[in-house]
C-alpha cells in the first residue's frame, strides 16, 4: 500500500538528478521540477522560517511566499552559488519582511506572543532540537533575529545591519545579549535536567 506513492515519488525525484538540470527545468516553469524542489527543500525551509517567526501557521505562509518567489525569480539565480543557499536567502528575506510588517502593525504582535508557547506535540519527536528552538523562541524578536542570522545562517554583522536596517554595533550588542540569555537558559535547563535526573535516581 505504501509502496506505490513511494515509487511515484522516486520517479519524480529521478527526473532531475543534477542541480543544473533542475534549474534549467525551473527556468522553463516546469511544474514537475517545481514539485521536486518543493519536496526536497520544503521541510528544511519551514524549519528555517519557524526559527524566525516562531509560529507554525505563519511560518508556513512565509515558506509558501518564499517558494513562489523562488519559482518566479529563478532567472535571477546565478549558477556560481549553491541553489540551496539561494533558496535559504530568499526564505530569510521573506521571514524578515514578515517581521518588519509585524513591527508596523502591533496588533499582530499578540499572535507572536501566543506563538512563544512551546509546541509540546512536537517535543517528543526531536526533543533536543525542540528544546533549543523553544529557548530561541523565548528571546525578544530583535535578539532572536540577529542570533538566527549570525549564529545559524552565518551572516556577517554588516549584512545583518543592512538586512534589518540597524547599525552594525546594534547587531553586535543584540547578539551578545542573545548569547548571554541563551547561555543562562541552557545552564538553567541543564541544572533542571540534572535535578530531574537526581530526583529520578533518588526515587528509584
Amino acid at each position, binding site marked *: 500500500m505504501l509502496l506505490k506513492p513511494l515509487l511515484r515519488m522516486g520517479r519524480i525525484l529521478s527526473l532531475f538528478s543534477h542541480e543544473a538540470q533542475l534549474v534549467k527545468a525551473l527556468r522553463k516553469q516546469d*511544474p514537475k521540477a*517545481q*514539485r521536486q524542489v*518543493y519536496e526536497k527543500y*520544503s*521541510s*528544511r525551509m*519551514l*524549519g528555517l522560517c*519557524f*526559527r524566525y517567526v516562531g509560529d*507554525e501557521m505563519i*511560518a*508556513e505562509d512565509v*515558506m*509558501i511566499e518564499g*517558494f*513562489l518567489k523562488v*519559482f*518566479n525569480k529563478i532567472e535571477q539565480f546565478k549558477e556560481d552559488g549553491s541553489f540551496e543557499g539561494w533558496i535559504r536567502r530568499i526564505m530569510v528575506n521573506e521571514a524578515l519582511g514578515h517581521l518588519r510588517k509585524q513591527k508596523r502593525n502591533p496588533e499582530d504582535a499578540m499572535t507572536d506572543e501566543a506563538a512563544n508557547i512551546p509546541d509540546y506535540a*512536537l517535543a517528543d519527536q*526531536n526533543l*533536543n*532540537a525542540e528544546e*533549543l*528552538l523553544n529557548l*530561541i523562541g523565548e528571546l525578544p524578536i530583535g535578539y532572536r533575529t540577529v*542570533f538566527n542570522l*549570525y*549564529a*545559524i*545562517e*552565518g551572516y556577517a554583522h554588516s549584512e545583518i545591519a543592512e538586512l534589518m536596517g540597524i547599525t552594525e554595533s546594534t547587531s553586535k550588542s543584540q547578539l551578545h545579549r542573545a*548569547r548571554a540569555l*541563551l*547561555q543562562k537558559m*541552557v545552564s538553567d535547563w541543564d541544572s533542571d535536567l540534572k535535578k530531574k535526573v537526581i530526583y529520578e535516581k533518588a526515587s528509584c
Partner: protein
Amino acid sequence: MKKHPVDDLFKSKLSNWEKQPSSGAWARIAKEQKTKDRKLGVWVWYAAASIVVATMAGYLLWPGADDSQYLSMEKVSEIADVPSPVSTDTTQKKVSVMPIEKAVESMEVPAVRLVGKSEVKAENKSDANDKSNFYAQTEIKGIKEEEIAVLEIQKEDHTKDVKAVNTPEFSKENGLQTALALRKPEVKEENRTIVVNVKVPENEFDDKSKTSKFTRVFRQLKNARAGDPVDWQEIGFNPRDIVAKVDERIRDKEEVILEKYQNIKQRTKL
C-alpha cells in the same frame, strides 16, 4: 574567527532542522502559480484581440479608393488650376491666354483639333454617364466663357472644316450660345463630351495617388495570395528589376577588376 560555544550548539542542532509542512501547502503554491499563468494568458488574449480590432478598424476607416473618388469629384473645379501631364490641360492654358480670333487663325488650331478627335472617341465608350454629366457641369463653371467659346470653335472646325476660320465673329457667337446651353442640365451630347474628356484622365491619375500606399500594397498582397498576377507598379518597385541591375553591376565591376589584374600581371612580367 572562532565561534562562540552557544552559537556552535545552536547551529549544529538547528541549521538543518526540519519541520514537515502541512499537506495543503503545495496545493496553495500550485494554485497561486496557476492563477498567475491564467492572468498572463488573459493578457495575451487581450493583446491579440486589440491588435485584430485595430487592423480591422484601420482597414475600414482608412480613406480608401471609394471615398477618394467622390472627394476628387467635389474638388474638380479647384484641381483645374493644378498643372498635370495630360495633353488637354496644356491646350486649355494656351486658349485662355490668346484672344479668340488669334486662336482661330493661328497654327495651333489643328493641334487642338486632333486632341478633340481623340477625346470624342474616348467619350463614345462611356456614353451618357451620370458622373460624366456632373463633371461636365462643374468643369464648365470653372472655365471662362471665352475658353468655352474657343473650344466650341475647335469643335466647329472639326466638324465643318474651314467655315469657322473664315468667320471668327460667327464662331464666337456660336460658342457663347453653346456655353449657355452647357450650363443647362439638358446638355447636348457633343458639347458635354468635349469638356468631360478634359477631366477623366486626370481623375484616374488622381485616384491612384489618393489611395494610400497601405491599401495598394494590401490589394496586391491579396492578389499574390489568390495566385493572381501582382501589379508591381502599385507596390512601387519590382524585385526582378532590382536583382537584374545588381547582377549587371557586379559583373561589370568584376570585369574591371579582372582587367586591372591582367594589367598588373603584364607589368610584373616585364
